[in-house]
């Protein structure tokens, strides 16, 4: 795997090595392993930012420019107002809720430092294409999220000079671990009063417990299974209102896919599935045949064009190549064919 050096010893060579070995073997303390990291190598990977501003690249941005960038790269998961879609993180609101029964932890209500926002966006966002934004875009989005949380003004020019001075509402809301914070004596008898003990049972129906049945597994013990389960619950709910009978989905006949569609499955899984499995941002779910009927009538070419160039309309929103600019046109086209042919 890592080894490419092939060693072979002849008998005489072994003998001569053995003769010299006795005097030459020492216990090495000085390893001298590894190469010097060049300034250029370090600069390429040294992406971290600290609250004191260490690591910030020279540059600036503002919320006015950040709005469009945010809507392009962030809103499909985090919501247009930072309110969060589905189970994706909420970015705004929640002020004053931290001591309430259901606290809402957001950038504005919880995060102690603005630097964390720049650092995280740069290292991990957007979810489907990390490290794809340039510094200008990261400054703009950071400014826009801070603006949505009423932390900076819309026209404030956020820069490497002033980001460390941006004060966050909950900066003083943290303290360093002070555990152990409880002390339980090792009592052996009469440790509790049985008369006062109350028993609370588990909620029913939220655990994926298919493994209790031998040879079976719960339909909900996978993320796709969860969506199927939610869909079937929704169908039951509607049926109970309308009185319609539930029609069991007819098992699809297996149809052979084209070579291009088969090749597209890997791209679909790595890039497209995040939205097209769960229906994020109005994306038609691959498992939802109804969502595809009208789209298929428009022709596959148009779907490919939308996938390559992006689409924004009433039905939903999709950035060009789903935000994955690194993908080739062919890879995206194949992935579209995979989704289309999955409907057959």
């Amino acid at each position, binding site marked *: *795997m*890592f080894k490419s050096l092939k060693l072979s010893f002849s008998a005489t060579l072994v003998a001569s090595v053995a003769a010299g070995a006795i005097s030459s073997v020492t216990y090495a303390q000085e*390893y001298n392993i*590894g*190469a*010097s990291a060049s300034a250029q*190598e*370090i600069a390429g*990977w*040294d992406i*971290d*930012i*600290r609250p004191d501003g260490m690591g910030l690249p020279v540059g600036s941005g503002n919320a006015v420019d950040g709005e469009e960038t945010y809507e392009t790269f962030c809103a499909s998961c985090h919501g247009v107002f930072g309110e969060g879609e589905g*189970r994706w993180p909420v970015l705004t609101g929640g002020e004053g809720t*931290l*001591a309430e029964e259901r*606290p809402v*932890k957001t950038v504005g209500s*919880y*995060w102690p430092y603005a630097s*964390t926002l720049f*650092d*995280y966006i740069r*290292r*991990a966002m957007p979810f489907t294409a990390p*490290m794809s934004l340039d510094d200008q875009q990261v400054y703009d989005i950071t400014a826009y999220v801070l603006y949505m949380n009423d932390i900076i003004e819309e026209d404030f020019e956020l820069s490497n000079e002033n980001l460390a001075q941006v004060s966050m509402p909950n900066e003083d*809301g*943290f*303290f*360093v*671990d*002070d555990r*152990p914070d*409880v002390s*339980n004596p*090792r009592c*052996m*008898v*009469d*440790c*509790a009063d*049985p008369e006062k*003990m109350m*028993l609370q*049972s*588990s*909620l029913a129906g939220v655990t*994926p417990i298919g*493994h*209790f*049945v*031998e*040879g079976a*597994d719960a339909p909900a*013990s*996978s*993320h796709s299974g*969860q*969506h199927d389960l939610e869909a079937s619950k929704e169908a039951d709910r509607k049926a109970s209102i309308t009185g319609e009978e539930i029609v069991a989905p007819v098992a699809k006949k297996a149809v052979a896919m084209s070579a291009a569609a088969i090749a597209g499955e890997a791209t679909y899984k790595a890039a497209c599935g*995040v939205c097209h499995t769960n229906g994020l941002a109005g994306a038609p779910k691959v498992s939802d045949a109804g969502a595809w009927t009208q789209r298929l009538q428009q022709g596959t070419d148009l779907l490919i064009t939308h996938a390559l160039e992006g689409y924004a309309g009433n039905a939903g929103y999709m950035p060009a190549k789903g935000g994955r600019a690194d993908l080739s046109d062919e890879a995206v086209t194949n992935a579209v064919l995979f989704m289309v042919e999955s409907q057959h």
Partner: protein
Amino acid sequence: MTTPSTQQLMQTMQGASEHLSVSDRREFLRRGMSYVAGAAAVGGTTIASAASLTSNLPPNEPQWGRQLGTGVVENPYGLPSRHEAQVVRRTVPWLTAESISSISMSPIQDLKGIITPNGLVFERYHAGVPDINPDEHRLMIHGLVDNPLIFTMEDLMRFPSVSQIKFIECPANGGMEWRGPQMEALQFTHGMLSCCEWTGVPLKVLLDAAGLQTEGKWILAEGADGAHMSRSIPIEKVLDDTLVVYAQNGEMLRPEQGYPLRLLNPGWEGNTSIKWLRRIEVGDKPWHHREETSKYTDLMADGRARRFTFVQECNSVITSPCPENPILRKGFIEVEGLAWTGRGTIKGVDVSFDGGVSWRPAKLKGLVLDKALTRFSFTTQWQGEPWLIQSRAYDETGYVQPTLAQLREQRGVNSIYHKNSIHTWQVAPTGEVKNVQIT
């Protein structure tokens, strides 16, 4: 009569078994499974007779004794028996938005001893499992060091290696139950927990090679995956026992465990053991990154939050009986479980059968190692009496695993992380086991 499909049979059986007790149900399903197998094997028009169910039992010579099996390297990388197919990692899908940034739990209800097999170690990652070519993977060490260094995997494997058995636990293990019990199975209440023999190099050795400067008080560890997961670790921990590991349980790391290289902070919350490790920067202050501010901080009842809550405090749970392992027969029973502490070794475990009114010492069995899973055992008789069974571990520091009431009183119910309270199983007279909380 037409042959019912396997699926139809399964549905019929499940329906018919719903009113049965757990033990009855297990027996019923076991018989039913044989029906299915028998019917499939003969492929005839009638369901196989009951006689075929016992054809492999004495005095008959079993089928596998009358034929040849598969040869060597049929599976070049061996797999478990197909009869163990239910022993798998599972997830709770409603916990997270996406499987790419999610968690799966180890089936600790099915595991023996203290080592978690590599394919069953719980998974947690934030941008999926990267496919890393080890020849193109590097570890960079820079910041407050005299000589910034960059290592290939071959370089790292030239250093003298160490192998240590350590548990790794997500601090959110059990975190779904701060407000009340809601998981009906051990795998989901405690499965964010695994224990392996890890092989690698102490990070101290690498920092010595780079020339650690005295101003260096913290390190930032960073992954090479799409999340570029990053955590600040105080230098005291690093110089104490932090490892850079490339192998687990005798083979190279699994991709989902950080192949080809990960950090291991023994006894500390799993998130600090950065996977796909590519960079260590030494600094004089912590970085306060997303996973140590927005996440992995513990919100208290007053709205303030603890940060840098690194250590996994002493904890334990009974793994048999448990909801997945009901008591099937009266008479002798070994009550077994796991105990662990991030503060060193487990000193002892007590068990209670009456919900914590009285306690009796259990026996520790097998290896009792620093920051490793430790197995405990209590042998007794069960005659169908209802039990509220609990385990309570204590460690070498004298810390005793607390009750949930004590934790709630101190922290409230919103901290998500670090819930290490005494766990209760309710054993019914049928042998069925349920997850409950005592308040």
